[in-house]
């Protein structure tokens, strides 16, 4: 075996996304092919996918994907869920055993809806009711991690290279209009199942290439509002910030991008008066949610996707369009492998959000 210094690991996480604006549903094969081109950017310590539109038969129910480290954790979680939700369906998530993926937890899927009288008594909307329940599971039930909990979507993640994770979860058997993928090269924390990307809350998912220097400041800020960062990875905090800003503060995703990747004051100072006022307001009002350090992220949400770089563009990000399909990736090659001749291919600027939505949906 080669020792440290004798081998060069040419790495940096990889992200990739495919979005069908016409709502056309495609299998997971294309996204697997795309992320596999960037094999060398990850090191086998994490891979994952988020898919939207995959559970049309259960689209009105929250789909929970949960990792359990023990049967006891499963029993406790199911008792917890049973008290608060109607469980419409539950099953193990089907997997394909492969020697390249090992030490899998118990992986279960539930389709649930809040018990009507409890929901009414709580005076919460069903999103808030469900998100509080999942945060509580992650925070208080030992060995249980809710991996995703949105409607008509799901997260499939593991420790391994992303193409192997795709085989493990049989993602070629799912059809979605929106897919994101991540290949991980963990820098500060160990590679573990729940710490792989995507991270999610309700229907919001994030895959991230980079490292957040402001993690602890952001974590302390967001934990003031009922969130709890349990997954030992900086990306988790981006997910909660975006959930807080969109769902609780009512900001648009473009405004969110101007908070987390806020332009420099010198850049703001050359804008026109109105824009100056607007951008200054966002920077001042939500200053604790400014994310510093290098990042490129893909944010999946119901009916759309956002790609965003840090304001200095310290990580790579390429976008492309072909007909009704939009592609994002860390490297152009990962787009060319699935779409050889895009109509348009470009690199979004630092801090410039690219937001795509389904043609029939209004912008969010």
């Amino acid at each position, binding site marked *: 075996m080669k020792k440290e210094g004798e081998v060069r690991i*040419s790495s940096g996480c990889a992200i990739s996304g495919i979005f069908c604006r016409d709502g056309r549903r495609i299998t997971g094969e294309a996204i697997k092919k795309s992320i*596999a*081109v*960037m*094999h*060398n950017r990850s090191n086998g310590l994490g891979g994952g996918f988020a898919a939207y539109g995959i559970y049309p038969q259960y689209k009105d129910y929250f789909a929970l994907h949960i990792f359990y480290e023990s049967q006891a954790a499963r029993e406790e979680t199911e008792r917890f869920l049973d008290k608060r939700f109607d469980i419409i369906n539950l099953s193990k998530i089907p997997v394909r055993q492969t020697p390249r993926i090992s030490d899998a937890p118990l992986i279960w899927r539930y389709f649930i809806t809040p018990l009507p009288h409890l929901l009414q008594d709580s005076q919460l909307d069903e999103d808030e009711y469900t998100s509080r329940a999942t945060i509580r599971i992650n925070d208080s039930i030992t060995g249980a991690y809710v991996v995703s909990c949105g409607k008509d979507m799901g997260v499939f993640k593991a420790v391994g290279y992303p193409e192997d994770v795709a085989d493990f979860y049989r993602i070629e058997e799912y059809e979605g209009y929106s897919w994101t993928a991540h290949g991980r090269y963990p820098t500060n924390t160990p590679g573990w199942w729940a710490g792989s990307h995507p991270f999610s809350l309700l229907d919001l998912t994030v895959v991230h290439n980079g490292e957040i220097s402001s993690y602890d400041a952001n974590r302390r800020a967001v934990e003031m509002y009922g969130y709890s960062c349990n997954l030992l990875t900086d990306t988790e905090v981006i997910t909660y910030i975006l959930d807080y800003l969109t769902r609780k503060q009512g900001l648009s995703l473009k405004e969110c991008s101007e908070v987390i990747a806020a332009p*420099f004051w*010198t*850049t703001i*100072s*050359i804008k026109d008066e109105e824009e100056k006022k607007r951008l200054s307001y966002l920077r001042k009002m939500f200053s604790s949610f400014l994310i510093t350090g290098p990042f490129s992220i893909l944010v999946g949400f119901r009916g759309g996707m956002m790609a965003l770089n840090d304001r*200095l*563009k310290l990580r*790579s990000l*390429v976008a492309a369009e072909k007909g009704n399909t939009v592609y994002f990736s860390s*490297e*152009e*090659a*990962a787009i*060319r*492998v699935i779409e050889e001749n895009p109509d348009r*291919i470009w*690199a979004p*600027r*630092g801090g410039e959000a690219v937001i795509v939505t389904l043609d029939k949906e209004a912008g969010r």
Partner: protein
Amino acid sequence: MRKNWKFLESDMQENEMKEFDIRKDGHKEIMVTDCLGERYIGCGMKDGILHIKGTPGNALASYLDGGTVYVDGNAQDAAADTMNAGLLAIKGSAGDALAYGMRGGRVYVLGDAGYRAGVHMKAYEDKKSILVIGGRAGSFLGEYLAGGIIIVLGLGCEGKSITGYFCGNGMYAGTIYLRTDKVPLNLSDKLIRRNVSNEEKDSILSPIISDYASVFSISAEDCLKGSFIAIEADRSKSYSQLYAAV
């Protein structure tokens, strides 16, 4: 992930596929087709000609030490990193961090360049780094520039800004030429901006641009049309602060 790498003789017989060590066997002209993200192509090459089709991966022609690399598409990040001599010509666009720390030779891009093109390029005695970008460049163009020449032509971008933010921040030698009459956005007041005279255009820009245009078979006259501005470090302020533009 290894695709069909076709190392071809100078007569470019597409059907013949062989495997051999290109560094030892002294082949003068080689074509690599169907590239898809493979890194380090042409890295440290000293002579010969390399034609590349497809999308080569990161660190293309890094440490290039002679010879020529032609790319028939776009290049990804970190092309020509620490390049020392030779020519890298990209018919499409380049990704971020193009020609980082370049020490000599020529990098020609017909399309755009991403962020951080020509950061900390250098020149020393007969070694002079030259970077020419046909389209527009992203932010931090020529940051910490230490020598050499960067030219941005902005072809097809008439009337638009052809650089991003923080152009030339922290530079202390070398020159950035921009084919525009617009000052880059928030240009540091520690940098000097001057209009380029016709004499300077003839003596410095014209030979470089003529060479650039002949590589891509485009009109040198079109590339030289209009006015150029030059950005340089303010020598009266050099070393007063390490990062001149903060």
